[in-house]
C-alpha cells in the first residue's frame, strides 16, 4: 500500500464496551470533486475489514453525492471511496458499541495521478550475464554441496532470495513460475522442482519475463519466470511390469494333443519404460503357449507401443486375447524409442524394432455340403496346419513443424518375414447317397521369405487465411516375396479304381511396387462453404512368376506348363475430383465428384499375350449430417468406390495346392464398382445415460468379383474369379442403452437384420443365393461399489435360399448366454470370471448341432504396501469344452468347421509392477 497515495484519515472513537446485542454500522457522508464544490454522483464506497480484507458492504452516492453504507456488524475496517475520474480515497474506521453511526461530512476526491514502476537492472560477474532480457546464471560457477537440491543452488545466486517457504524472489520481484527446460514439467508448485531436483543436474538458471498465459495467477499481464535448464541426462524415471505364469506341468493333456505338446503351459511378460525429458524408451517381451499371444490395448497405450496394437482392439482392456484356432507358441519382443527435438520440441522422432516368433499347430475338422443343379455331395475334411513364422519390423516416424503453418511427416517401415508352413489335408468324398467315391490327401510344405518397404511422406500446409489448406502425400510401397516348396497329393479314386498322384517342386516370386501421389487443396468460401480440389496419380506394377516342376527320378526338372506362368500387370491410375462442402452448426453437406481413369496392361510372359484394359468411371459421393442438437445426430451418406483385382485373381495359371479345389486366374477381370448407401441416427443423453442408435446400410456392386466353379463327377472343382452384376448387401441395426434403478443397472438391447444377395457360377449356370439373417440381444450391466457384472444373451437366425438347389436351404440358428464379473474383496482379493454358453441349432441332426459352455475365472490377491505384487490363480475353460465351431455359407457350399483349441488349464501367476518412485504403479485406465 503506497502511503504517499493515500490520504490517511483516522477517525478514532473511544472504545468503551460492547453492548449485549450486536449492532449495525451506519456510515453516511457526501463526496465532492477535487474542488470540493461539486457533489459527485455514483462514487462507490466500500467497507473492507482490516483484519482479513473481507468486503463488509458497499454503496453508491446519489445525485447529491450522499451515501449510506450499512448492513454489517460493528468492526474495524477500511473505507474506500472510489470514482473512475479521480484517485481513490481511503479511511480507517474503528467502530464500537457506542460509536457505530459515523458521518464523514465532506469527502474531497484527489486528482488522478499515474505512477509508473521503475525498472531496476543489476550488472553482474561473468558467471551471470544478460542475453536480451534474460538473466542467465551458469550453475557450475556456484559451489554447492554434494546432495544439494535446486533450492540450495538458488540461495547462492546473487540477486535471488528464497524464503523459508520456498518462495523465490529475483531482484526483489516475486518469481511466479518455475519452469524446467521451458516446460511446466512439475506443475504449478515451484517448490516441487526446487526441492526435489538435484542441483548438479542444472546447467543454467534463466530469469525472464513472460506473457502470462493464464493471466490469473498474478495480477499482471507479464510474470517473472525462473527457467531451469537441465543437463542432458537429467529428468529421469522408469516404470514397468514383469509377470510369469505356469501350470507346473500339472495339466492333463489328452492324447489328442499334437506330438510335441508334452510340456507345461506358460506365460511370461516384461514391460519397461524409461523416460528422460522428452525421450522415452520402452522394451517389451512376451512369451506364451496359451492363447494370450499379444499385448493388451492398455499396455500398448501406457508403454507407447503403438505398432503392437494390430491385434486386439481398444475394447480388449485386459491382455490381448487373440484366441487363435489351434495351439500357439508365441515370442514377441521389441524396443521403442521416441524423442522430441528443437527449441520448442516441434520435431518428434519415433523408432521401433520388433521381433515376432510365432508357431501355430492347428488341427481342424470340417463337413461341407455342395449343392449342384442335378445332385449334391458332401465331404469330410481333416486337416492339420503347422506354421512357424518369424518377423522383423522396423518403423520410423519423423514429424516436424517446419514453421507455424507447415507440418512434415516421413514414415518409413521395413519388414522381413520368414516362414515355414506345412499343411496336410485328407478329404473323403461322399455322393448324394453317402457312397465313398474318392479319397484324397494333399501335403504342402513351403519356405517363404518376404521383404516389404513402405514410406509415407506427407506435407500439410495451412495459410494465414483460416481454412485454406494444402496437403501433399506420397507413398511408396515395395513388396518382394518368394516361396519355395513341395506339393505331394494322392487321389484314391474308388469308383474308377485308380490312384493318381502329383509330386511337384514349386516356386513363387512376387514383386510388387507402387507409387501413390495425392495433392489436395482446400479453399474456404465465406464462413460456411469450402471448395477443395484433389488429384491422385498412382503407378503400380506387379509381377508374379509361378513355376511347378514334376519329379523325374530323384530330380525336379520337368517344368509343368499347366501350373507355371509369368505374369505382369502395370496400372496407371489418374483420379481428379472436386468437393464442395458446407458446414454450419447444424448442417454438414459434402458433394464430391471424382473422375477416374485406370489404364491396365496385363502381359502373360509365357505366351506373350497382352490384355489391355482402360476403364473410366465417375465416382460421385454425397454426405449429409444434421445435428439438431449436440446430443442428436442424423446422417446420410452415398458413395461409390472401385477396387482392383489382385494378381492371383488375374494370373492365367492353375494353382493345384489343393487338388480338390484348383484355382486359376482370369486376366480379363475388370475392377468392380460399388454404390454404397448409409443412414444413421443417434441420440444420447449423458446426464441420464440414455443412448439410442439406429441405422441402415445398403450396397450394390457392378462387376463384383465372384467365383465361377465347375465340378467333375466326384465333386472336385476348378474355379476362377469372374465379374457379375447385381450383388447386394444390406443391414439394418438398432440399439439402446438406458439405466434403471439409480443407474446401478443399465439395459442394452440390440437388433440386427441382414440381407445378402450373392451370385456365383456353378458349371456355367448362374446361382443366386439370397441370405437373410436376423437377430438381437440384450445386455444388463450392474455396477455396485465393489462388484461389477453383466449378463447378456444373443440370438441369430440364418436362412439361405439358393436358386440352383433347394437342398441347400436349411436354416440354422445360434444363441449365446453369458456373464462377466469383477468383484473386489477386502485384503487385496479380487475375483473375476466370465462364461459363455453357445447353442448352435439346425433342423434335424447335423454337424453344426452343438452346444458348449466355456467358463474362465481368476482369483488374485495383492501384496506389499503399494499393492504392486499380485499373485493369482487363472483357470481357463474350467469345464473342458475344447471346441470352437462355426458355419460358413458361400454360394452353393455350406461348410461347418470345428477347430481344436486349448481347453482346460490352470496357471499360477505372479505380477510385479514397479517404478522409480517406489509408489503404487497402476495399469493405464482408458476412457470408455
Amino acid at each position, binding site marked *: 500500500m503506497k502511503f504517499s497515495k493515500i490520504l490517511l484519515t483516522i477517525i478514532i472513537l473511544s472504545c468503551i464496551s460492547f453492548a449485549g446485542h450486536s449492532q449495525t454500522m451506519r456510515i453516511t457522508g457526501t463526496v465532492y470533486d477535487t474542488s470540493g464544490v461539486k457533489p459527485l454522483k455514483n462514487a462507490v464506497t466500500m467497507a473492507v475489514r482490516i483484519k482479513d480484507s473481507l468486503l463488509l458492504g458497499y454503496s453508491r452516492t446519489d445525485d447529491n453525492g450522499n451515501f449510506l453504507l450499512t448492513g454489517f456488524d460493528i468492526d474495524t475496517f477500511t473505507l474506500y471511496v472510489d470514482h473512475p475520474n479521480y484517485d481513490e480515497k481511503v479511511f480507517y474506521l474503528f467502530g464500537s458499541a457506542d460509536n457505530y453511526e459515523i458521518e464523514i461530512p465532506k469527502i474531497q476526491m484527489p486528482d488522478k495521478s499515474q505512477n509508473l514502476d521503475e525498472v531496476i537492472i543489476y550488472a553482474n560477474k561473468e558467471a551471470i550475464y544478460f542475453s536480451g532480457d534474460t538473466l542467465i546464471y551458469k550453475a557450475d560457477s556456484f559451489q554447492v554441496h554434494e546432495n544439494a537440491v535446486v533450492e540450495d543452488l538458488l540461495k547462492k545466486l546473487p540477486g535471488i532470495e528464497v524464503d523459508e517457504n520456498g518462495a523465490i524472489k529475483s531482484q526483489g520481484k516475486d518469481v511466479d513460475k518455475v519452469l524446467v527446460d521451458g516446460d511446466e514439467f512439475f506443475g504449478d508448485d515451484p517448490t516441487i522442482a526446487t526441492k526435489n531436483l538435484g542441483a548438479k543436474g542444472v546447467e543454467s538458471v534463466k530469469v525472464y519475463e513472460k506473457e502470462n*498465459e493464464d493471466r490469473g495467477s498474478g495480477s499482471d499481464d507479464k510474470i517473472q519466470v525462473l527457467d531451469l535448464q537441465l543437463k542432458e541426462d537429467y529428468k529421469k524415471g522408469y516404470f514397468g511390469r514383469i509377470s510369469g505364469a505356469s501350470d507346473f506341468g500339472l495339466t492333463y493333456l489328452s492324447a489328442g494333443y499334437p506330438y510335441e505338446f508334452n510340456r507345461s503351459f506358460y506365460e511370461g511378460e516384461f514391460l519397461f519404460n524409461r523416460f528422460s525429458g522428452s525421450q522415452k524408451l520402452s522394451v517389451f517381451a512376451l512369451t506364451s503357449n496359451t492363447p494370450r499371444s499379444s499385448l493388451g490395448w492398455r499396455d500398448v497405450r501406457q508403454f507407447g507401443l503403438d505398432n503392437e496394437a494390430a491385434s486386439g482392439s481398444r475394447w480388449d482392456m485386459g491382455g490381448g486375447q487373440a484366441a487363435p484356432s489351434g495351439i500357439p507358441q508365441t515370442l514377441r519382443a521389441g524396443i521403442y524409442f521416441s524423442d522430441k527435438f528443437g527449441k520448442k520440441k516441434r520435431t518428434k522422432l519415433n523408432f521401433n524394432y520388433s521381433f515376432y516368433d510365432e508357431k501355430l499347430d492347428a488341427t481342424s475338422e470340417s463337413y461341407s455340403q455342395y449343392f449342384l443343379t442335378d445332385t449334391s455331395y458332401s465331404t469330410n475334411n481333416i486337416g492339420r496346419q503347422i506354421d512357424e513364422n518369424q518377423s522383423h519390423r522396423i518403423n520410423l516416424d519423423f514429424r516436424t513443424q517446419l514453421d507455424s503453418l507447415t507440418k512434415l511427416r516421413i514414415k518409413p517401415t521395413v519388414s522381413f518375414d520368414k516362414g515355414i508352413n506345412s499343411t496336410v489335408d485328407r478329404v473323403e468324398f461322399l455322393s448324394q447317397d453317402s457312397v465313398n467315391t474318392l479319397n484324397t490327401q494333399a501335403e504342402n510344405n513351403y519356405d517363404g521369405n518376404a521383404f516389404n518397404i513402405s514410406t509415407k511422406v506427407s506435407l500439410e500446409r495451412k495459410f494465414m487465411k483460416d481454412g485454406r489448406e494444402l496437403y501433399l502425400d506420397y507413398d511408396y510401397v515395395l513388396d518382394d516375396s518368394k516361396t519355395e516348396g513341395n506339393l505331394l497329393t494322392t487321389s484314391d479314386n474308388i469308383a474308377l479304381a485308380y490312384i493318381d498322384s502329383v509330386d511337384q517342386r514349386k516356386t513363387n516370386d512376387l514383386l510388387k511396387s507402387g507409387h501413390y501421389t495425392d495433392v489436395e487443396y482446400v479453399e474456404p468460401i465465406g464462413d460456411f462453404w469450402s471448395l477443395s480440389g484433389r488429384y491422385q496419380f498412382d503407378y503400380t506394377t506387379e509381377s508374379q512368376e509361378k513355376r511347378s516342376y514334376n519329379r523325374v527320378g530323384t530330380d525336379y526338372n520337368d517344368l509343368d506348363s499347366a501350373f507355371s506362368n509369368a505374369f505382369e500387370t502395370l496400372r496407371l491410375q489418374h483420379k481428379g475430383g472436386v468437393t464442395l462442402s458446407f458446414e454450419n452448426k447444424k448442417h454438414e453437406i459434402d458433394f464430391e465428384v471424382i473422375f477416374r481413369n485406370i489404364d491396365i496392361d496385363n502381359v502373360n510372359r509365357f505366351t506373350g499375350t497382352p490384355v489391355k484394359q482402360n476403364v473410366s468411371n465417375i465416382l460421385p459421393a454425397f454426405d449429409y449430417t444434421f445435428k439438431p442438437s449436440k446430443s442428436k445426430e442424423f446422417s446420410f451418406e452415398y458413395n461409390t468406390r472401385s477396387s482392383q483385382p489382385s494378381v492371383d485373381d488375374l494370373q492365367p495359371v492353375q494353382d493345384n495346392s489343393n487338388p480338390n479345389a484348383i484355382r486359376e486366374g482370369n486376366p480379363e477381370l475388370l475392377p468392380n464398382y460399388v454404390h454404397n448407401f448409409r443412414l444413421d441416427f443417434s441420440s444420447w443423453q449423458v446426464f441420464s445415460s440414455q443412448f439410442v442408435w439406429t441405422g441402415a446400410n445398403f450396397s450394390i456392386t457392378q462387376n463384383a468379383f465372384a467365383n465361377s466353379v465347375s465340378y467333375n463327377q466326384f465333386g472336385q472343382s476348378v474355379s476362377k474369379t469372374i465379374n457379375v452384376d447385381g450383388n447386394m448387401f444390406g443391414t439394418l441395426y438398432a440399439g439402446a442403452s438406458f439405466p434403471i434403478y439409480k443407474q446401478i443397472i443399465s439395459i442394452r438391447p440390440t437388433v440386427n437384420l441382414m440381407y445378402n444377395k450373392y451370385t456365383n457360377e456353378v458349371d456355367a449356370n448362374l446361382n443366386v443365393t439370397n441370405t437373410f439373417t436376423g437377430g438381437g440381444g440384450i445386455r444388463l450391466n450392474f455396477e455396485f461399489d465393489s462388484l461389477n457384472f453383466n449378463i447378456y444373451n444373443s440370438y441369430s437366425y440364418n436362412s439361405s435360399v439358393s436358386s440352383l438347389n433347394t437342398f441347400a436351404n436349411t436354416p440354422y440358428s445360434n444363441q449365446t448366454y453369458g456373464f462377466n464379473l469383477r468383484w473386489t474383496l477386502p485384503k487385496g482379493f479380487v475375483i473375476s470370471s466370465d462364461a459363455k454358453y453357445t447353442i448352435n441349432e439346425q433342423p434335424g441332426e447335423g454337424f453344426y448341432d452343438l452346444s458348449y459352455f466355456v467358463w474362465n475365472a481368476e482369483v488374485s490377491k495383492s501384496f506389499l504396501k503399494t499393492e504392486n505384487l499380485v499373485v493369482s490363480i487363472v483357470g481357463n475353460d474350467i469345464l473342458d469344452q475344447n471346441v470352437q465351431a462355426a458355419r460358413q455359407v458361400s454360394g452353393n457350399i455350406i461348410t461347418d468347421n470345428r477347430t481344436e483349441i486349448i481347453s482346460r488349464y490352470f496357471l499360477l501367476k505372479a505380477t510385479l509392477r514397479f517404478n522409480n518412485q517406489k509408489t503404487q504403479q497402476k495399469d*493405464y485406465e482408458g476412457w470408455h
Partner: protein
Amino acid sequence: MKAGIKITLFLCFIHLSGIAQVKEARIVFERRTNLEKLYGNMEQMKRFVNEDNKIRIEPFELLYNDTASAFLPIEDPTGGPGGWMAYLTTKNKTYSNYNSKQQMTTMDFAGQAIFVEDSMVSREWKITESKRFIAGYNCRKAVYDKNDSTRIYAWFSTEFELSTGPEGLNGLPGVILGLATEDGGIVYFAKEIEIGKIESSKLLYDTGKNDVYTKESLARTIEERMGKSRWSSGMMENLFRW
C-alpha cells in the same frame, strides 16, 4: 478483435469525459481454459492434451440491465473447434434476477440442458490493493476463498453499476471484468464492452417441459444416478466451481 480495440479506445475516451455510470451493457468475455491444468492430474488425459491444444479459448457474453443479467456462451456459427474436446469445458448459461435474488443456471451436459434454479449465493469477498486495466477499465482484484483448497480471483470495475459478473458471480460493487481460478486453469477476461440498451427479452429463459432442479436436488440426483461414474465428479466440480 480490431473492432474490440476500437470500442475499447472509444470507451476510454467517453468515460474520461465524465459518464461514470454504466447501467446497461453487453460485455464480451474470452474464456481461456488450460486443459492441462484442469485435467493434468488425470493420467488418461495427458495423451490428448498437448502444447497445441491445451489452451482452449471460448467467447461468452454478459448482458445486463438494472435488475437482471444473463451470462451466455456465444455460439460459434461454424460449430467451432469441435470433437469431443468441446465437452471438456462447460457452456453454462446463468440468468440472474436481482429483485428476486434468484439465479437460473442452464448446464449443457453433452447436449442435454439441465436447469438449476436457486437463490443467489452470498460470497465473502476479500478486497486487495492490486489493480489492473481490463478492456480499458481500472479494476481491483478481489479474492474469494470458496473453501480451504479453492481460491477464486475477480477483477471488478466500479464504473459499472450492477453487481454482476461471469458465471453469475456477484456481490462486488461493480461488474467483474476478469475472473480466474487460483491456478489460472480457467480465466475469463472482458474483451469488448458495448454500452447500450439491453432488451429485457434477452434476459429471459424458458425451461420448457424440463425438470428444474435446485443445486441441492441436482447434486443429490447426480450422486444417485452417476455416483459410480467418472462423469459425476467432473460434473459436480463444474457445477459448483464458482
